[in-house]
């Protein structure tokens, strides 16, 4: 459906995107995961036609996706990172304005507004000024404002920034429902949990480069370990920790936990034998599947929060 081929975008001396190639299929829920400044918003703005690439091509359903292309704009819906609403106006008025810009009018527009407000549980607040809404309510309205014209592809640029968990969950459920109904979604985020929960395929981006691309399982196979073992960083575990770098990668989190990722050659049984030799009880240790966070660290050498 959407194709990016060797797309590069520079701002002066800064290369925001460096030869990114990407194909997104119809009906996908694609996640673009990376820290702030990685190139996610630039990618979104190029797809949305807000900017033109310096090199490379973008196509939607085989048609060139040029900056300013009217056809492309009718096919796309953009949920900006900011609350892009007129705060002095009420929810109904905002939706009416944005719907009208897509040529909607009359009873059709009325019906779509009603459905949109119902979907994000804002029907009873439709006459209230947006500035009186909570952050979560504003985010929900921000989302449906991009859907009134029923786009084929929805671009969500970090749509849950500053949202409380309850509203975030409501947004997730709504997006999942839209995707089940056939809407293709590209979702940029720096929250590993969001990408893990929502996206059927994920692209990991940093410094304008797409470092990895695939389903969650495919991505995790790129890690040189299958399990991650965590245990408290205490004087009792210090001797064990001192020995572990010879068997794998050991990091210490700020909340006082050691995270040990064994080399492929290191068997879990040998780790626990070593722990037993230090008279450390098994209950101190927890093992879990590695996460996208670990993958990102492995691929880029830095964390998503950096």
């Amino acid at each position: 459906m959407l194709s990016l081929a060797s797309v590069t975008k520079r701002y002066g001396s800064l290369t925001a995107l460096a030869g990114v190639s990407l194909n997104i299929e119809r009906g996908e829920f694609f996640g673009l995961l990376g820290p702030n400044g990685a190139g996610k918003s630039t990618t979104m703005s190029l797809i949305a036609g807000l900017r033109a690439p310096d090199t490379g091509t973008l196509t939607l359903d085989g048609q060139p996706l040029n900056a300013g292309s009217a056809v492309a704009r009718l096919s796309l819906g953009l949920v900006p990172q900011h609350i892009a609403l007129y705060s002095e106006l009420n929810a109904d008025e905002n939706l009416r304005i944005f719907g009208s810009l897509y040529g909607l009018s009359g009873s059709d527009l009325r019906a779509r507004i009603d459905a949109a407000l119902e979907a994000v549980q804002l029907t009873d607040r439709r006459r209230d000024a947006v500035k009186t809404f909570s952050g979560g309510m504003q985010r929900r309205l921000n989302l449906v404002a991009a859907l009134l014209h029923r786009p084929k592809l929805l671009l969500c640029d970090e749509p849950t920034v500053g949202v409380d968990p309850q509203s975030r969950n409501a947004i997730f459920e709504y997006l999942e429902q839209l995707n089940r109904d056939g809407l293709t979604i590209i979702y940029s985020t720096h929250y590993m949990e969001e990408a893990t929960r929502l996206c059927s395929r994920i692209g990991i981006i940093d410094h304008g480069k797409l470092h990895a691309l695939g389903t969650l399982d495919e991505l995790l196979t790129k890690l040189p370990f299958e399990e991650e073992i965590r245990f408290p960083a205490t004087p009792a575990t210090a001797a064990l920790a001192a020995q572990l770098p010879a068997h794998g990668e050991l990091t210490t989190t700020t909340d006082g936990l050691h995270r040990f990722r064994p080399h492929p050659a290191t068997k879990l049984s040998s780790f626990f034998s070593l722990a037993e030799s230090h008279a450390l009880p098994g209950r101190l240790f927890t093992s879990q599947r590695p996460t996208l966070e670990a993958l990102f660290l492995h691929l880029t050498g830095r964390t998503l929060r950096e």
Partner: protein
Amino acid sequence: MHTILVLVRKDFTNFFRNKPALLLTFVIPFVMIYLFGQIFGINRKDSGPNGIPLAVVNLSDNPGAAKLVDALKAEKSFRVLTKFVNPDKSTRPLTEADARALMQGSDAPFRFALVIPADLISTKTIGLRFKILSNPRNEIETQTVNGVLQKTIFTNVPELLAQSLQARAKDFLGDARLQKFNGAIAGAVAGTFGGDKAQIERDLSGGDFGISQLTQSPKPADPTLRRLDPTPAPARSAASVAATASAAPKSDPPTLDSHPSPAASAAAQIIKFETEQVVGANVKSPAATAIVGGWAIQFLLFALSASAVSLFRERDAGIFQRLLASPVTRAQILLGKFVYGVSIGLIQLLVLFFAGRILFGIEVEKHLGLLILVCAFAAAACTSFGMLLAAIAPNAEAANGMATFLIMMMSALGGAWFPISLMPQFIQQFSKLTLVYWSMEGFSNVLWAGMSFVQLLPVLGILGGITAVVMSLAIWRFNRGKIFE
């Protein structure tokens, strides 16, 4: 104490980083103080009005009349025009008909004309007669012109008065009896004060009573003659002239003092000014007509600049992203903002003029069609100004600071606060570069001069030109800037 000092340092640091705040705190007051200082003549040798165009039609062959014209030319308050320029660039002396015709147009080269009639000195009456043609669309300027004109006449051509007396005496007494009378006076003067009796007699016959030697001194020594001098002081400021003069009835012969002395009243009887208002004679509430336009355009500029600055808020809120991702182009966003500005500006101007109608009786409905047209053009020019501000300023705060500075400057220079003729010549040169000046011209041409659509075209053309040029600059800057990114 340390905490307080840290907090104070923080505020100073913020303040000096905030360029708009610096502009508002130091630059704008400085410029305004300078402008007002110039207007009120503070530390200025040439205080008072400057170069007000005055047409002089001299129909008299009396040498004193020519001397009066020279005196008017030497008066720095006036820029005297005595010639009519033919299409082939040749010139001829200005006639009263020329003056009347030239005072009608939107590009009238002058709003005041002094006609010195052929029968300046009549044998049938004692005294001098002058005619003043005026287009007094600005009350302060009109009173200033009247005051300066009287002062110049009184202080420069007193012998004309004496000639008038001689002419009347000759008609009344006959030539022989007058010569005998002059001879008797000359003998008495020569006998009492000395001098050549024959020369004194010739002087008396020619109207030279020696008054000019007294009236042309900075201040007459004789208290009686001082009372004849209607100008309280040569350096009297234009503002005080205006303030005093505005108390005088409009239709009366111009006087400078609301309580004239008996001698001044006598002078007013023997120098008669026939004032004829050539333009706007039927306008009700002329002062309000002039004032409302100036203030309306100033507040319109503030309102429309604030509206244009809202572009920054929309950008910061990400609304442009949403709009540009929909079937909306940058040009449409700017055009939408422009049309909104013109519409709200038009409404605001009309509301203010109708308020002027209710409060001061300005005859709005009489010229409604053309007034709407001028308001639309003025609103368009003001909107383009606001758009340019938004295009060149890096952020909303800077745009607001620049707006305040430029609007106050344009209002002062453009004549919204006071007549531009009160400012020094070099500052007046900038007046016509302001859209305030041309908007006020438009309002005045409609409400004051009652001009037709065709007559309004030059001003509309200039306002339209300002709009086109400024808006083009704004669009160019918008396309190069980052407001849409």
